[in-house]
């Protein structure tokens, strides 16, 4: 791969992602104040000791934002990874086995997808206790339905190839066919999908937290910080916009990188980049 061929937009995206991941990894060392430390008056303006001002309880907004990066990114990443493990495994199994297994899995998936994601999450979260792992699981299950649809379509195209037939005739088991024959050939569309799903998970988690159903206070996460500070908007205090911009920025960066990846893979196959 030539580095000069990478467009500027992809570099911007990767730089943004690197910054966010750096903040998430080293939050305790870079954050000027503690996550829950009350340092001053409420809603102090930007500048001075508090670069981004303080929040609705007088906590340093920059510190909360940095700690929030940790929570938001790790929860979204965990949910996306889990969604991919489930979605890829089930969709490949459906494509390889076919018949009733495929029918059953696909119809259940159709049913899950016929209820809008947010509505489904709201219904489920109305019953389940508010715990972190449950939140991750709910987001993962909902995301895996989208992964399943793509994974099945991709795998169906590959299962009819000669090398898969050859492997079958060789007497390889199902696990081998899924992980050694199909998975390596499906990686590039799945990688792009992983990026998109991650961006979606960040937005989804933030939306849930904003509605008060995601990460529970006093833990900081970007959607939650928006919720904490939304009442300031009426008084013209922009504190709620900063975490909102962080969410948007992260999602835009992921999209820029994915856009480049998609263009790159489609041009490798000789297809039109913009089709």
């Amino acid at each position, binding site marked *: 791969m030539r580095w000069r061929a990478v467009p500027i937009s992809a570099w911007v995206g990767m730089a943004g992602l690197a910054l966010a991941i750096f903040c998430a990894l080293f939050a305790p060392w870079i954050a000027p104040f503690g996550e829950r430390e009350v340092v001053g008056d409420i809603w102090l303006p930007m500048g001075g000791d508090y670069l981004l001002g303080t929040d609705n309880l007088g906590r340093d907004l920059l510190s909360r934002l940095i700690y929030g990066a940790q929570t938001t990114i790790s929860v979204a990443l965990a949910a996306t990874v889990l969604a991919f493990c489930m979605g890829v495994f089930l969709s490949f199994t459906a494509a390889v086995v076919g018949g009733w297994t495929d029918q059953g899995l696909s119809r259940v998936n159709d*049913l899950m997808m016929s209820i809008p994601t947010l*509505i489904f999450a709201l219904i489920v979260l109305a019953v389940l206790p508010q715990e972190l792992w449950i939140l991750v699981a709910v987001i993962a299950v909902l995301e895996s339905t989208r992964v399943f649809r793509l994974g099945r379509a991709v795998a169906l195209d590959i299962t009819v190839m000669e090398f898969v037939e050859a492997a079958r005739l060789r007497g390889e088991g199902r696990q081998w066919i899924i992980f050694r024959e199909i998975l390596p050939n499906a990686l590039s569309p799945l990688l792009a999908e992983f990026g998109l799903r991650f961006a979606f998970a960040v937005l989804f988690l933030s939306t849930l937290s904003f509605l008060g159903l995601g990460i529970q206070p006093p833990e900081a996460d970007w959607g939650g910080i928006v919720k904490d500070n939304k009442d300031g908007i009426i008084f013209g205090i922009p504190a709620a916009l900063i975490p909102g911009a962080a969410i948007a920025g992260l999602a835009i960066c992921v999209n820029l990188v994915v856009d480049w990846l998609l263009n790159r893979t489609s041009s490798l196959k000789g297809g039109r980049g913009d089709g």
Partner: protein
Amino acid sequence: MPLAALLIQRLALSVLLMLAVSVVIFLGIEALPGDFAQTYLGQSATPQAVANIRQELGLDQPAVTRYFGWLGGVVQGDFGNSWASGSSVSRQIGLRLGNTLFLAFWAALVSVPLAISLGMLAVHYRGRWPDRLINVVSLGAISLPEFFVGYILILFVAVQGNWVTFPSTVYDGMSFGQRLEAIVLPCATLVLVVLAHMMRMTRAAILNVMSSPYVETAELKGLDTLRIIARHAAPNAVAPIITVVALNLAYLVVGVVVVEVVFVYPGMGQYMVDAVTVRDLPVVQACGLIFAAVYILLNMSADILAILANPRLRHPR
């Protein structure tokens, strides 16, 4: 298969899907752990008090009996009573559904023509700066969460500009004009949120058609652009564009939930979120079912309109 049979089949499938969804929403919820009575009474609840509440709400009966009781009511437009307030869910929904549809209707009315014309503009200037500008801006806009767009509008238009009022409350006795004025900001937020997506999909759908062999033939034949678009490209692009529009209208229904909370707009979304926080299941189930029904209905209309617009779909391979 004749057209009528195909349409009836789609309808029947949707009805079946609705039934399956109602089972998921009712029985699926029952299978999950968690108990309203326990949550409602808190840590110090005595077993007797919990049992009393359960009996009062009918929770001591078997789930299947309650499901059919619930479904029977739903078919007659009765969603039961709210656990939290004890009032009729259907009444509340009757008041709020209209508000939500009013908001979604105006958002759709603005966004659909705008998205399609922008998409066509992008195709017309394919590869040149208007296309690139539209591409970059829309890629950014897709990534914006609804609440971010909403609060930016509130801060700059309502608070600093003071051009419209916030929150966007509507109530009985408001005139049509007043109502429209109240929903300007939530409507603008929804439009911004769905516009980018709808436009990108429209652009892709038209580009797909424009790169097909018959359009190339028409070009080589020497027809002028307008004629190619009107006679050859447009009829074939109608089906994908209809799908795009219906899918995004379905998305609008979901976007409404967050936007209503941001703008404190008295609609279904606000009602549902409030109910979820206090675990008021009858309300959550009713709202969930209605949102899912609208979503399924829109997807079904997309299917049917696509079949009507494209005869090739009537003969599945």
